[in-house]
């Protein structure tokens, strides 16, 4: 993979130049945490963060997004017809995204880009965005990306990976989109073999710092109904307050709701993030609710991420190990523990089963 040097002195000026052809987003400090915000001209992203509180998923998949517009005014010839909402899909770059969050886009693509249907909103926004990632030299104790198919220096989903090397960034340019962004920023000083060795050295150090490891290798072979009926769900779910913190902070949770909102005679059809934690998510018109109980909803969240997704795509778990849900769950429900329970579960009386 091509590596270039970016002297830190050229960082701000490069971004300024890139700003001519890209809208730029980056982490900005908001009180006690960091959030991705659009950068004003000349503004540089704050890169001293561990990770942003919310992932970058909202930049491609906004929490509330206009799908269509309409008028209900019978005097208008197009009344009651949905018209595509005008969108800005001009090129943009997200600076400083962590490798785990970039990998999340690859996972989520499996939902929005299918052989039968393509979600035009997600796909166009994803196409428009260039991801300039920042390698994670100091992962958190709650990070388990290396157990989840990602890693602190993974380039999955990224167009450029920046590695901080003191006075400069070593930038791995992973895709043509990354190449175009580097061009736009005027970063073109090729790095030598020593740079690749330095990146590799830092990667090994960072990976070794991850002390949270989650076993997932038996999830695929577990029987769905057996896991579904496992006795541990009541205990896992007891403390859960069924808020949307885990799902909304998660970079890989993609569920949404569709709503019409009318003001006067003008309106929009919107989609909003939704959460499997909310009872309304599955409530039938009749009042029947297939996941009306808290324990059913908690089980759904974990079964989806750690079993249904695993079986459906045969591409690992629906989790990149960013650890947000672990850090911010108000009642400390820890996906690492739940994954361990699911992975190691054997039916009672089946304790002699060979664990591969």
């Amino acid at each position, binding site marked *: 993979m091509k590596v270039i040097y970016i002297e830190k002195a050229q960082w701000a000026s490069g971004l300024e130049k890139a700003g001519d052809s890209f809208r730029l987003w980056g982490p900005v400090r908001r009180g006690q945490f960091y959030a991705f915000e659009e950068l004003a001209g000349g503004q540089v992203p704050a890169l001293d963060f561990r990770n942003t509180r919310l992932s970058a998923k909202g930049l491609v998949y906004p929490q509330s997004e206009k799908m269509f517009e309409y008028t209900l005014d019978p005097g208008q010839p197009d009344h009651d017809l949905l018209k595509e909402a005008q969108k800005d899909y001009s090129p943009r770059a997200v600076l400083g995204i962590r490798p785990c969050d970039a990998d999340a886009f690859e996972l989520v693509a499996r939902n929005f880009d299918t052989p039968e249907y393509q979600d035009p909103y997600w796909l166009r926004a994803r196409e428009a965005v260039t991801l300039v990632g920042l390698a994670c030299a100091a992962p958190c104790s709650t990070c388990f990306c290396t157990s989840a198919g990602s890693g602190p220096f993974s380039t999955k989903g990224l167009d450029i990976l920046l590695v901080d090397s003191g006075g400069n960034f070593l930038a791995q340019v992973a895709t043509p989109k990354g190449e175009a962004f580097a061009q736009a920023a005027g970063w073109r000083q090729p790095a030598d073999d020593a740079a690749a060795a330095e990146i590799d050295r830092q990667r090994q150090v960072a990976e070794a710092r991850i002390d949270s490891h989650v076993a997932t290798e038996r999830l695929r072979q577990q029987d769905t109904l057996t896991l579904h009926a496992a006795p541990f769900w009541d205990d896992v779910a007891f403390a859960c307050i069924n808020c949307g913190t885990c799902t909304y902070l998660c970079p890989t949770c993609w569920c949404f709701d569709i709503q019409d909102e009318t003001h006067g005679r003008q309106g929009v059809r919107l989609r909003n993030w939704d959460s499997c934690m909310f009872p*309304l998510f599955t409530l039938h018109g009749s009042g029947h609710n297939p996941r009306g109980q808290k324990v059913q909803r908690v089980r759904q969240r974990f079964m989806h991420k750690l079993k249904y997704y695993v079986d459906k795509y045969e591409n690992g778990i629906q989790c990149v190990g960013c650890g947000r849900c672990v850090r911010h769950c108000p009642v400390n*429900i820890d996906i690492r523990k739940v994954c361990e329970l699911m992975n190691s579960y054997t039916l009672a009386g089946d304790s002699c089963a060979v664990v591969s």
Partner: protein
Amino acid sequence: MRAYTEKIREIARRLLEACTVERVLGFRRGSVPMMNAPCFVKTPAEAANLVWDSNCGINLANYLTSRSEKIGIFAKGCDSRNIVTHIIENKIRREQLVIIGVPCHGMIDRHRIAAMADGEIREVVEDENNIIVQGDGFKKVHNRHDVLQANCAVCTHRNPVIYDELVADLVEEPGDVDRYRDVREIEALSAEGKWDFFDDLLHDCIRCYACRNACPLCYCPTCFVDESRPQWVGKSQDPVDVRTFHFLRAYHCAGRCTDCGACERACPVGINMRVFTKKLEKDCLEKFGWEAGLSLEARPPLDAYRPDDPDDFIR
């Protein structure tokens, strides 16, 4: 706190062994620093998992709503006041409960402590007066009083108001506390100033409803924000809808809120929505001399009619 933990385990074991209760509601050690998780202990052996320290800020009354078992519950001052409110509002019966009072020294503010640290916090331990925070390459010692949750710092009901037994001797209630300085500061703002203040306050809300769901008062089967016929509130991130949610929720808690801080503690984006409920709490105190959850006998002000009500419209 170690003494509390030992006593708590002993009491839980005794209650379960004697079948005085079917379940005991308490806390177990969490998997990350400054987090304990509510747990339902079912057997005497499991009582050994119970802990008590300054990270038990979640209001356990939230877990009592409409339960049918006989339950032993550990209750700080605020939890006990919400248990009273639950009993008054017929969400649980007094006879179902064995309330083990936990005189409270205040819970610590995990968000603030994390923000003050020079890196990721790996471990937090505490002694009588200090909170010792450690991470990679740093160690910080905070005086407990400096890092209390904001609601705990102004709490005047640290002792449980209702209990069957106590974990320890009652603590001294702080006498001279200015509970509403923050509310007065907002009251003093101009209309424009208030607008800007609320705008900024709610800027980061993601409508995850952690505040609502952590709140023991918010037990409506269908919250007004989820109601679709009629739909009172839009479901998008429109600031008007976000504000409507917070304002209306606060009003629903008027005369009921004990300022337990569960909402603020649960919020993943650090919103101090307590300013809303505190304003109503202050109004209830000033207009009706009312503090929620202190007595099983008195009806809350919005739940009672008096012929001598000071307001004309209701007479």
